[in-house]
């Protein structure tokens, strides 16, 4: 079971409670929440906020493709996956991405959670622009998008 969404920060925030409601299942004995947040420094620069840009349709498509790949790769019974990624400008400490997974066993949950964040880094068209304390801002370099 999969939930995916790009969350527009001008309308709402990413909230753990939504993920908890979605992944809670009596069939699963282990849940992992991966929460990405904005940190206060990068390359010796003081970061005060971050803007996330995304190609929304491709983002959702990539999440669905990664989910299908995970089924082929792991074939875990009854696993549940919740993914939300932010879009827009967020402050320090705010959530940029939430990946919540529930599986029958803990080793499966850890494996699946790690698989999703690593694949998203390679295949999901999202871009970050850092805003610094000195008033400057800069798009982060990133890596060319990978296709299956």
């Amino acid at each position: 079971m999969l939930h995916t969404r790009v969350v527009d920060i001008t309308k709402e925030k990413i909230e753990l409670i939504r993920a908890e409601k979605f992944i809670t299942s009596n069939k699963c004995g282990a849940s992992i929440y991966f929460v990405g947040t904005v940190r206060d420094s990068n390359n010796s620069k003081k970061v005060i906020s971050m803007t996330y840009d995304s190609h929304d349709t491709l983002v959702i498509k990539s999440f669905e493709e990664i989910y299908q790949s995970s089924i082929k790769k792991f074939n875990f019974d009854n696993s549940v996956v919740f993914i939300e990624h932010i879009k827009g400008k967020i402050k320090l400490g705010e959530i940029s991405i939430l990946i919540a997974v529930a599986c029958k066993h803990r080793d499966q949950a850890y494996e699946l959670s790690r698989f999703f964040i690593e694949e998203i880094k390679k295949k999901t068209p999202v871009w970050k622009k850092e805003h610094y304390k000195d008033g400057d801002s800069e798009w982060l370099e990133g890596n060319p998008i990978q296709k299956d």
Partner: protein
Amino acid sequence: MKLELYGASRDFCKENFINFNLEEKSTIKKLRVAIIKFIEVNFKDNEGYKKIVNSSAFCSGKDVIVSDNYKISNNEKIGIIPPIGGG
């Protein structure tokens, strides 16, 4: 055709897109050349911007990542997908 801008390529224009007049059935390869020319003219040959274009993928009007040989239809919206880095 209309080039939709994402990520670092948004710095190429104040709008979220740039219009290009390309010949019918031009390829992504030709579009890439046209964008480089646009940068040479408008940004004094900015090497950083040219690097972004050369390392970008492109997305068709049907939201599919396409190769450099893909032929662009009349009035098709093509998205430029610079190197990614979300999460």
